[in-house]
């Protein structure tokens, strides 16, 4: 119907030659209008995202004083440093462990929330999402205080169970454990919300049919819930992988990379090298090492998002 009406409108307008030119102008105007509407967006992305991204590749090929071109020697210098390989390893451990636990906790808690009656879900969901709402810099300060070497509230509580004072941020293992714990705490609610939305979209009939066929809870999860949620799990996990891999706030505030650079991630080490020691080229070089894993994750996300778009 609508199309016919539009046709009629066009025909009516096209009747006189003067109207025809105005129609052509309108057509011309449509792409001009579109251009002007998207121009700020294009400028913003080009000037403040794309240009800096390429500029950092250029910066990475300069010497420390940024006076002469040194090719790839910044990269070869990094390859020879032990700290660099430690950062690579720690970034991978941190990102993978944190994402796995976030995904698991999110999945489990989403099921519990989904189990309880609908009216109460809102309240619980509201409570469980709080970590995601507090700015990470602020909540990490609270964790720093919970981990405090002399007044740690955790150690106080654990002492009643006879567990000795744990050097939360002083020991390599515990420091790594702590930064991952805080990251899991901060990121799990995001998974929870995504999974909860996905759980709600699984039709109840599937579970009823499975129950009639005598499926147990594990079979229901494995054969119904997981396949139905596969896409959303993939997108959420990949997205979280990017964010976790590029994390800065938590490690910076909690340990500043210590003890002995053992908890540094690419972002915090790049900050220390590039800004605090003002070796901008080397810092740019360090942060560029994030690109490959981000690119791989981004490609997969894009594929999944497009697939999802086609299904809908």
């Amino acid at each position, binding site marked *: 119907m609508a199309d016919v009406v539009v046709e009629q409108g066009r025909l009516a307008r096209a009747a006189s030659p003067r109207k025809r030119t105005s129609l052509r102008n309108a057509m011309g105007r449509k792409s001009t209008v579109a251009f002007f509407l998207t121009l700020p967006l294009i400028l913003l992305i080009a000037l403040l*995202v794309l240009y800096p991204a390429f500029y950092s590749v250029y910066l990475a090929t300069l010497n420390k004083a940024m006076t002469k071109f040194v090719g790839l020697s910044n990269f070869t210098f990094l390859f020879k440093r032990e700290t660099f390989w430690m950062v690579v390893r720690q970034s991978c451990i941190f990102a993978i462990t944190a994402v796995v636990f976030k995904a698991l906790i999110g999945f489990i808690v989403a099921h519990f929330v989904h189990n309880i009656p609908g009216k109460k879900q809102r309240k619980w969901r509201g409570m*469980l999402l709080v970590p995601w709402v507090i700015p990470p810099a*602020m909540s990490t300060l609270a964790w720093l205080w*919970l981990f405090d070497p002399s007044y740690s509230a955790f150690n106080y509580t654990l002492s009643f169970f006879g567990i000795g004072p744990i050097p939360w941020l002083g020991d390599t293992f515990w420091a790594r454990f702590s930064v991952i714990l805080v990251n899991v705490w901060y990121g799990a609610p995001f998974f929870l919300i995504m999974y909860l939305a996905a759980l709600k979209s699984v039709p109840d009939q599937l579970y009823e049919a499975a129950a009639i066929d005598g499926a147990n809870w594990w079979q229901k999860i494995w054969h119904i819930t997981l396949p139905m949620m596969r896409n959303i799990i993939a*997108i959420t996990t990949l997205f979280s992988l990017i964010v976790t891999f590029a994390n800065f706030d938590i490690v910076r505030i909690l340990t500043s990379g210590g003890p002995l650079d053992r908890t540094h991630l690419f972002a915090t080490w790049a*900050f220390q090298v590039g800004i605090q020691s003002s070796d*901008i080229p080397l810092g740019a070089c360090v942060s560029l090492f994030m690109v490959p894993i981000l690119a791989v*994750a981004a490609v997969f996300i894009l594929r999944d998002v497009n697939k999802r778009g086609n299904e809908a």
Partner: protein
Amino acid sequence: MSTLAIDKTGPTRKVKLRSMSRDRTWALRWSYFFLVLFAIFFLIPPVYMLITSLKSSAEISAATNPWWVFHPTLSNYVELLTSNQFLRFFWNSSMISIVVVIVTMLISIPAAFALARMKFWGSATLATGVFLTYLIPDSLLFIPLFKMLAVVQDFTGITLLNRWYVLVFIYPTLTVPFCTWIMIGYFASIPKELDEAALIDGASWLQTLTRIFIPVALPGLIAATIFAFTVSWAQFLYPLVFTTSIDQLVLPVGITTTLIKGDVFNWGQIMTGALLGAAPPLVIYAFLMDYYIAGLTAGATKG
């Protein structure tokens, strides 16, 4: 055993129902049990912030039970809310966040409108590009941006580094891509008949946008606004790199750098500051939770 006994007396169907409902009650009880455990884990830090913020320095260093306030006092709040420095941080953060929200909306609404409704050369590529930009983290760009600002500053003579207003230009790189992306989704879900009708009635593109798209997609707009506000309020890396003078700092950076003096941590004040800094997003969340969650899930579900 007991099921068997009931089996003899009552009809089979009733028994089945009862055992199923009993299973369900137990599942429910376990769900609540674990939910309480997880809620404790999730709420410990904010609650501990509140507990510590109500203590005096003397009580904190007395090493009494850390989970209880014996002599509650509001002195930390009074001290921070009357300190010009802290109010300055709050003011800087508010100004930046509000301006960034406005700038973000001014850029992303028209762009999303064009990308959702006007098919033009390269529009699909641009939409994909916007989504990819959203995936570029701040920790990849802070070094080149820092150097760029320094170069521009030397070239033009306009002071850019160590000024809070420069953040107003930088933050939209974090907010605009996501807001545009979810607005495209919301705009695309509006039936085409609606804007065709408006066009036939002689409305211009601008009128279609302001009279139809914005009112109809208002929930999406609110979700995008909340997202832009919380992102700019919480941003930590860029202000840490670009600003250093005390009067130019925003809240997260201000609290972490000024309240920690050397190795002396004034924990009562730090926790009070952190709680006050977390308050605006928490208040928004408390009142607009549904929009907040809509914005959170829209990124992946509106493709």
